């Protein structure tokens, strides 16, 4: 589904990704792990076109997308849920959701705003409130719900559990699993918490200082003590 070949990304003199090869297979959850500053966010930004790769190619669904713009990527079926502030705070909750549906790619059965409200009832209660009045956790629900409205083929999630209560995290992970199993959604999941990410993922990729240091079945990575100590911190 998604294939990176020798991708390098720089910020001026800083090389954030170096020669990254990575495959995220269709209908599976691939977790990207690594310490702070390892390049996880840069990886997602490079894939979705927010940051231009300095070298290498990215293929999505059999098509070279290395030079596509972000909005083209979205319409091709890629939904990027960015790290932190992904809501448009000056718009209402409902307007944020409507925007998600506008970027819809028609690859799966349409998700409606009502479906999203069923998942996260708070979004229905606060429908007409400006998004800047939401709490951090509510904002996270809003950006994930908004991404689902676009009915993407692939979801790029940057630390979706950040600042959320464990119960909400397992609810969100449950929803994602369900979409993966029932509709064949493909997920690239960046997580700080390696243990919980590996528990829901099929495959894990470990980044260290911008390079891929391991790529294997999630269960095998989770069992590798040395790797856990060196890169995953548990």
């Amino acid at each position: 589904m998604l294939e990176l070949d020798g991708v390098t990304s720089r910020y001026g003199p800083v090389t954030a990704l170096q020669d990254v090869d990575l495959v995220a297979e269709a209908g599976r959850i691939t977790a990207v792990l690594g310490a702070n500053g390892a390049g996880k966010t840069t990886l997602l930004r490079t894939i979705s076109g927010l940051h231009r790769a300095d070298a290498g190619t990215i293929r999505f669904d059999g098509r070279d997308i290395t030079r596509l713009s972000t909005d083209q990527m979205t319409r091709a079926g890629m939904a990027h849920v960015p790290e932190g502030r992904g809501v448009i705070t000056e718009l209402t909750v409902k307007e944020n959701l409507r925007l998600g549906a506008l970027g819809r790619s028609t690859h799966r059965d349409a998700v409606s705003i009502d479906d999203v409200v069923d998942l996260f009832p708070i979004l229905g209660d606060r429908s007409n409130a400006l998004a800047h009045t939401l709490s951090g956790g509510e904002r996270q629900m809003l950006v994930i719900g908004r991404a689902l409205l676009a009915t993407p083929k692939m979801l790029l999630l940057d630390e979706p559990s950040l600042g959320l209560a464990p119960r909400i995290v397992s609810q969100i992970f449950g929803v994602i699993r369900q979409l993966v199993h029932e509709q064949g959604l493909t997920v690239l999941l960046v997580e700080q918490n390696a243990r919980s990410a590996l528990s829901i993922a099929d495959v894990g990729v470990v980044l260290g200082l911008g390079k891929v240091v391991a790529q294997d079945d999630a269960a095998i990575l989770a069992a590798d003590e040395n790797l856990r100590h060196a890169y995953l911190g548990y």
Partner: protein
Amino acid sequence: MQLINTILGGLSLGMVYAAFALALVLIWQSTRIVNFAQAPMAMVTTFIALTLIESGMNYWVAFVAALVAGFVLGALVERLIIRYVDHDNHINPVILTLGLFIVLHAVAAVIFGSNFQSFPAPFGLTGFSVGDTTFNLTPTSVFTILIVIAVMALLRLLFLKTDLGLTMRAAAFNQEVARILGVRVNRTLTLGWALASVVGSLSGLLIAAGGLVHPSYMDGVVVYGFVAAVLGGLDSPAGAVVGGLLMGVTLSLVSGYLGSGLVPLAALIVLVVVLLVRPGGLFSTSTERTV
């Protein structure tokens, strides 16, 4: 009686300032640029209308043609110039729009001449009268007030009720997230400049009606329209409208009771007082956004 007439005069003038301020706000919201070239852009489209009228075209056809020209001019300026400015450096766009101001002036003087020419009014210029008293409200000023209200209502409808308007607001507030959501941000920016330029052109045509035009006939409006936009918070379309009306009425009162020489000073005083009391403008709604 004089008071009522002064206020009536200020009202239609205020509507024109409001339209001009609204055009500034539309551009500020989407690109964080104060478009100093807006007055000469409006001046150019007004001269286009005048040229068409003098060549025998129907007034209203020329009026609409000038607005269409404003749309095209706004889109071209964004597409060919503004797009390539380094927005991280705040002074660059300012210098660029000031440069455009000078260039458009010079070009207009060459093409249309730099002498005063009279621009026809769409309707009568004598005030309505009841019995013996004549009010300072002419059919043309009624038209001015109504068309500005109509344009504002249409814009409000566009931004609040349509998908296109929603994508334009999204791109103005947060370009990166808008892109992630599939919005073609470049297009919405071009459209934003085009629409702002239409509104600016409208204010140019309304000021010209029944008066004289000249390459710098709009320059006074720049100052008052800009003050009106700042009064409204620069970020708020509704604020621009209220700011415009406030400027129109205040300046009309000053001119009527204290003398027209004091008008520029009065504009400055209003600006300073409002900014002292409410630094974010009268209608500031900005949240945690940093500029």
